[in-house]
């Protein structure tokens, strides 16, 4: 290269347009625009919507799609996704289980609940069962300390758990 060649000024890497978001997702995001004075403020709701579309997690293409839709730098959106515990960057099971083991739940047997899940599902924390059905993690306080031990399966709380109750709940998950 001759000494007079300028350094490249084009951004490299895959150029991803907003084509990744479905029409339904886009419509839902558009419906929120009137609620906020800035486009940036729609980001958290938009990520929830995108995560739902992508089956419970956010691959890089989903992140790039949301960034393009809201006209935000993709590094910024990536920073937001990696900050929050409810946004996942690796595949999850069809059912996502979060077991609180913070102090109040630990005082009432949360560790044993985690053991049961490990036994019944045959995988460790943050791993997906081979049939893609479930994944589980321990979690921080979910605000249900009076019904400890408890866990969250998808959007629902399951409270006052015992090992048998956990087994019953797992049986119902498809």
């Amino acid at each position, binding site marked *: 290269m001759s000494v007079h060649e300028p350094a490249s000024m084009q951004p490299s890497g895959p150029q991803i347009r907003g084509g990744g978001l479905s029409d339904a997702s886009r419509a839902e995001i558009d419906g929120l625009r009137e609620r906020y004075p800035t486009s940036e403020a729609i980001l958290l709701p938009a990520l929830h919507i995108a995560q739902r579309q992508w089956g419970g997690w956010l691959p890089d293409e989903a992140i790039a799609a949301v960034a393009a839709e809201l006209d935000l730098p993709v590094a910024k959106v990536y920073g937001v996704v990696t900050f929050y515990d409810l946004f996942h960057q690796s595949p999850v099971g069809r059912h996502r289980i*979060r077991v609180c083991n913070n*102090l*109040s739940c630990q005082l009432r*047997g949360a560790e044993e609940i985690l053991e049961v899940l490990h036994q019944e599902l045959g995988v460790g924390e943050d791993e997906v069962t081979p049939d893609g059905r479930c994944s589980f993690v321990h979690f921080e306080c979910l605000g249900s300390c009076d*019904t400890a031990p408890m866990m969250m399966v998808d959007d629902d709380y399951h409270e006052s758990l015992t090992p048998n109750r956990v087994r019953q709940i797992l049986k119902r998950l498809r």
Partner: protein
Amino acid sequence: MAAFEPVLTKNVGKPEALTLKGYRQLGGYEGLTKALTMEPDAIIDEVKKSGLRGRGGAGFPAGMKWSFIPKGKDKPKYLVCNADESEPGTFKDRLLMENDPHQLIEGCAICCYAVSANTCYIYIRGEYVKSAVILEQALKEAYEAGILGDSVQGSGFKLNMYIHRGAGAYICGEETGMLESLEGKRGQPRVKPPFPAVVGAFGAPTVINNVETLCNVPHILTHGADWFKSIGTDERNTGPKLYAISGHVDRPGTYEYPIGVTFREMLDGAGGMWRGRQLKAFIPGGASAPILKPDQIDIKMDFDTVAKAGSMLGSAAVIVMDETTCMVRSVARLAKFFNHESCGQCTPCREGTNWMELVLKRLEHGEGTESDAQKLLSICKNIGGQSLCALGDAAIGPVKSLVDRFPEEIEQHVRERACPFPQPRYFENGA
């Protein structure tokens, strides 16, 4: 003491409260109706007079906070309701939102009218899906009935109220962390000053109040500040208070008492110690509150008394521990929580909470040394008062109290090179 009539939880257990019609029949929206006949400043004065202090953890006088909002019309004003409830041991706001959503909406509406905020965001932690669904339904009804929208109850005051779901971060319960998250960014607290009353959401003056704080407001308007003041310990600790009690008690749950109920009374009200065990320690106000010992069993659970005893009432999340509990293991778990939740911006919290978790883990696993206790205190000293936000100060609360009040447990861990308290099994035969 005279039997206390619940105020905040009076509609809990009444399914009709979930509908607008039912809520009204139970006396709801009277406070808002009254407020709309008053001058905004008069509402603020009434709330000030009532002595209502923030129920989210800081205990800052609500009326004073409202009065900081500038009166000028050049910038929009916002109310952000803090429904991020993530302090370990706290679950009272969830109870209020899932059982009496209109009470919160009414409180928010009155506050908005008082500070001339035309937009209110209810920032609900992302995990509270049921609360969000119930509140969305209640908001829909409120819009349809003209309680929200272009003219609140025909008054000409425009008010839009929206739910903004979080995505799993305790630090978003910090005022400016919440504002950052609302604006679509990482929930990293801001340098203060400027304070939210001057530069808040989207650069505009903003009030941020906890769910329970706002739920008190309709009742203050309906029954008056004097009535509110008549409940509680003294003029600095007034009103009804929700106490969320969990851990080793027979009937964990949310209990409403006049603020300043003694811990003993509260413990009895929750059925006493679980399985007839002995009280070893209790946390009066959530994970950030220094741990108290049984000698404090008669302590009045109000802001000032608990502070004087070397702890804090905080969110009034009471966690009770019996004699089978290892204090080191418990504090290690809390240290892990704070390390996980630290946003990572400032050096003392990012590095210090990480270090404290590692030291406590070592202690718990029998790899502690004699210098660990003093080292923990030294780390606490280097974090306290020097971090960017209060999470640093919160993180050192339990650790300091462990070293100060349970030194013999630490020594035992070090001496025996193992945890002297076997992990209790709660379920027989995997049942």
